[in-house]
């Protein structure tokens, strides 16, 4: 980003100086922007990319067959098992979360706006109670009488889904609430009621379809978080899950963890692209996932 750039863009050396100074100062839009801005952007881009490049080079260090690590990963039933397990847990989490949050947000808007601060406060709580504390409490509560859930796999899976649903509340509620703000809930409800619909039918046939976009973006974010989650799954001894699987791999294997990390990054990216694609036009919405 120093002197040679003038000749790189095809202009004769000295042509830049020929432009009247006042003109360049007035219209910075035509130029390539502030060099300091470029410098900062390049620094940021390097911070993003270098760890990925390092991981990639590490994953192909197997000689002579540089794709050995990838082949091993794809031959590993545990990899697909972990992915399938976490994906299933993610889908169940999304369904449960939607079944709870959509009626709640709808009802708050329509009938009990007075309780909105309470509901918002509750949906914000997962930011206050970090995952490691949440799982601490969950294990203590559900490993003692009367409800010993941690003793069985099914019970532990239930706690896992419950914890993930709680983690999904903040952004699921916000996504649904912004979606509801964009449609005229009251008129739609009254129209449906005057045509003879009951509450379940209104929610299922009128509200859900109208919220499709915001529901999908909340769902993809949930999926991205659940698939990579480690802390809660690990303490609940869900060793089948993707996070604990990758962690164990990282301790025992030399090259495959690099390949799996990159694949995991790719999955996160797919989820984010899906969200960006769905959220076109929704300006200024921030997806904050919380600490991990």
């Amino acid at each position, binding site marked *: 980003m120093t002197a040679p750039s003038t000749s790189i863009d095809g202009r004769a050396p000295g042509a830049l100086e020929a432009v009247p100074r006042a003109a360049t100062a007035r219209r910075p839009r035509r130029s390539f922007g502030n060099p300091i801005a470029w410098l900062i952007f390049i620094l940021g881009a390097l911070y993003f990319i270098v760890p990925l490049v390092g991981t990639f080079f590490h994953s192909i260090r197997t000689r002579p067959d540089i794709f050995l690590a990838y082949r091993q990963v794809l031959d590993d039933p545990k990899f697909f098992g972990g992915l399938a397990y976490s994906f299933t847990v993610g889908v169940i989490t999304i369904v449960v979360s939607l079944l709870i949050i959509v009626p709640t947000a709808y009802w708050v808007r329509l009938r009990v706006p007075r309780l909105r601060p309470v509901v918002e406060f509750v949906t914000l709580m997962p930011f206050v109670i970090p995952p490691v504390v949440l799982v601490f409490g969950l294990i203590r509560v559900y490993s003692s009488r009367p409800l010993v859930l941690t003793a069985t796999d099914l019970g532990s899976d239930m706690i896992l889904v419950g914890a993930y649903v709680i983690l999904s509340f903040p952004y699921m509620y916000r996504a649904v609430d912004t979606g509801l703000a964009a449609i005229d809930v009251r008129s739609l409800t009254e129209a449906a009621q005057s045509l003879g619909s009951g509450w379940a039918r209104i929610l299922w046939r009128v509200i859900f379809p109208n919220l499709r976009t915001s529901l999908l973006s909340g769902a993809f*974010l949930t999926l991205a978080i659940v698939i990579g989650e480690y802390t809660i799954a690990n303490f609940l001894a869900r060793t089948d899950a993707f996070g604990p699987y990758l962690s164990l791999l990282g301790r025992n294997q030399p090259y495959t963890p690099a390949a799996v990390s990159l694949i995991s990054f790719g999955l996160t990216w797919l989820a984010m692209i899906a969200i960006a694609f769905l959220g076109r036009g929704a300006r200024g919405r921030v997806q904050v996932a919380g600490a991990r």
Partner: protein
Amino acid sequence: MASAAQPLEQGAPAARPARRRFGWAWLGLLPFFVFSIAFMFLPATWLVLGSFRNSDDQVTLQNYADLSTGIIPGAFLTTIEVSLVTAVGGGLFGLLLAYSVILGGLPRILRTALMTFSGVASNFAGVPLALAFTFTLGQLGFLTVILRDLGFDPYQSGFRLTSKLGVELVYMYFQFPLMVLIIAPALDGLRREWREAAENMGASPRQYWQHVALPILTPSILGAMILLFGNAFGAQATAFQLTGGTLNLVPIVIGAQIRGDVLHNPGLGYAMAMGMVAIMGVSIGLYTILQRRAERWLRS
């Protein structure tokens, strides 16, 4: 709707029907509250109650007093330091980065690329992130080897990826993208009219920033940094995978306490979890207040 009927009903108590409807309507929120209690408030209450009990099941404040003993104060200090450094560092860098793509005159496509990448990177935390940095800045990492070939061996000069500095470098990877995501709407909200008005009154760009833009942005910037602080404070998986539990951070000590009573006092573990919740609660509370202040200017 009511205006036509009003003269007729003038004498009737208006509050009655509304109140009766409210009396039953809250039942619609029952599933939400029951679920929240079962999977969040009940566990949290368990920890609260446990933190006030000693091993003989008597009510006590001793656990909170004992927070100042052993490894605990060090763990809190280290965690606060790591969170503070990455919140301020990541916050400043994220702000500069957002500024450069939004107001720095860079091509628009870079802005789109940065926002997408920030969404990915701020969610790319935990085990894979720790592994990626191990392969990059570990003893035999990609960057370490390059730096060594260039004549600068970071490990010779005392750098360890498992140290505080190492954890801070790794946390930066999700901290500054998060800052970009949070602060971008605030930068977008700086209206051109404000700048033009300032320029018309003869303000230099420096004066515009000092007296107009920065005061408007300050609540947003502070609030975002506080959120970043909480984000780093609550993170467990990344640090655990990176250090194998050797660095004394609060989430790591709590994790060890879950596995096996390393503090030799269950109540002390609960008190420590409460300390963590208190710090998170204060930061989220401050964030909410500052966010409300910031929104005053963003409303268009």
